[in-house]
């Protein structure tokens, strides 16, 4: 290894007579490698029929987990909205009932503008907003991509299942 720049060399082209021969040989070698792929197993998936095996940490569609009995887990702290890099992507409307318990009136996420960074999932204090291994989000209009609380919520048992597969305590009350 040297820090000194060394003189550039002029690279001699091989003499003409064996160029043809060596060229043919090398092309033959390349083709042999290419042909050896014919018998190998295919690495591509026939997508709509075969779905890829996604990791549990996959950054896909967002969801709101609920408590085990199906009631809201979200406490309306708006931490997720604050760390989201896109302005006003997560919109939360909430009020407090007689016992000062939070009630979530509205929770909308515009999936069309979400960049699937996972920031929101990381700061949620109650592990409520999480991601699903679901990437099939295409739709016919932008409005259809704005998911409201009903679309986002993952009810009772599904939420427990999510927590189980992600190494969290499954039942939350």
């Amino acid at each position, binding site marked *: 290894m040297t820090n000194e720049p060394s003189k*550039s060399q002029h690279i001699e082209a091989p003499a003409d007579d064996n*160029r043809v021969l060596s060229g043919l040989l090398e092309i033959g070698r*390349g083709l042999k490698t290419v042909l050896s792929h014919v018998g190998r197993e295919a690495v591509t998936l026939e997508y709509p029929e075969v779905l890829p095996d996604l990791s549990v*940490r996959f*950054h896909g569609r967002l969801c709101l987990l609920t408590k085990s009995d199906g009631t809201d887990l979200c406490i309306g702290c708006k931490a997720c909205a604050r760390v989201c890099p896109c302005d006003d992507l997560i919109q939360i409307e909430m009020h407090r009932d007689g016992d000062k318990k939070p009630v979530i009136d509205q929770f909308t996420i515009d999936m069309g503008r979400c960049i*699937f960074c996972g*920031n929101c999932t990381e700061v949620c204090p109650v592990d409520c907003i999480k991601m699903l291994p679901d990437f099939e989000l295409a739709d016919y209009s932008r409005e259809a991509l704005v998911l409201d609380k009903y679309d986002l919520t993952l009810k009772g048992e599904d939420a427990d299942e999510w927590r189980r597969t992600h190494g969290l305590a499954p039942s939350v009350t």
Partner: protein
Amino acid sequence: MTTASPAPELSLRDKPGFSDLQGVTVEHGLNTQDMVVNIGPQHPSTHGVLRLVTTINGEIVKDMEPVIGYLHRSKEKMAEGRSYFQYQPTIDRVEYLSSFYDHYVYVTAIEALADLKVPKRVEYIRMICMELNRITSHLLWFGTFLLDLGATSPFFYAFREREAIFKLFEDITGARMMYNYFRFGGVNADAPPGWLDDVRKVINELPFRFDEYEAIANKNPIVMDRCIGVGVTSYQDLLDYGVTGPSMRACGVAQDMRKTNPYSCYNEVEFDVPTATEGDVYARYKVRMAEMRESIRIVHQLLDNMPGGDSAELRKLEKEHAKVAEEIAAAKKRVTVAKKNEEAPNAADVAKMAEKAPELPFDYRTTGQKVNLMVFKPPAGEAFSMVESPRGMLGCYLVSDGTPKAYRVKWRGASFSNLTILPSMMIGNLYPDLMAIFGSLDIILPEVDR
């Protein structure tokens, strides 16, 4: 950075073949005129949206002007309106082929500012991610470069291997390309159990695949004819334009930040810096192929010496520690609220027990110090950090005024400087060589425009 030493004399115009070609247009008096050809911004070979306004006369390039900015997304300005954590995911889009590097410079700049200590395990995981990222980036380059030269099959082979590595990234970060994984003083989550073995499996396979690539491309007469002796640069030119990375090393300069100023734990691993002396397209090809093998060597060493080993063992250890902690807590409780007909344990004994409670060594952790990401404010000051990205020197300059938002973030992308040398390499050269030369520089447009 290495110090400048006297540059070797090598002018493009001294190259054999050049004067002959120019002679054709003059001697024979062909009535050729300068013609302006507009390449891009939607040209498949410009790998992004680059426009090259090229003046040619016959087949000879007389002038070339890169027009950039089509991908400008004001990444630097965005930092000023967002908190540090909020800004972080957008960094992935600065340089989407090797975004672990962008994250690394950003978090290390912040760590330097806020004086956060980083556990060794974190550094090792980061280094594995970065080296694998170098391989994916070079693989993409290999595929598209040969595609530009007209070879289609290697492109698919390179993407197949790249996909295998992306699967590893997906397992650890949750995303294939936009990782958002490094955190201030740590990483987002520990590697999943068994991940290290998966990595080992993939990288054990790779050298055989590289052999296959080289069997196809190395001595192929078309590749050789189009690459050897084409696009030769001089050392002085590279210095003048601030070119770094494999293009620099292909000119015989072993300038690699991993060796010259070792960051992270690069001083703990053994590796060589591949160089070539010819400074042509073929030399750049050789350097990149050799670099991928060096990266594999580095990853092997990191896997063997990973502090804490596989995360499954660590989790077990953590559980044991938690059990002890529980026992201590229970004992403490009994000291204060001793039940009737039960002897309260000696308070001093319990305190001693608590003192000896096992703890996970600092180097085994995945975050050095818990940082509240929402209200994180590094103290006022400035920091600059650099890494050797697959394309060259990548730097991030960060100024903080003590508020949750950065005062200024400046990116030093390697692609920008590497692109500026293109006109000087092209002027006087053959127009058909453009794609070979441009491809060999491995430029990524989002990093140029930011």
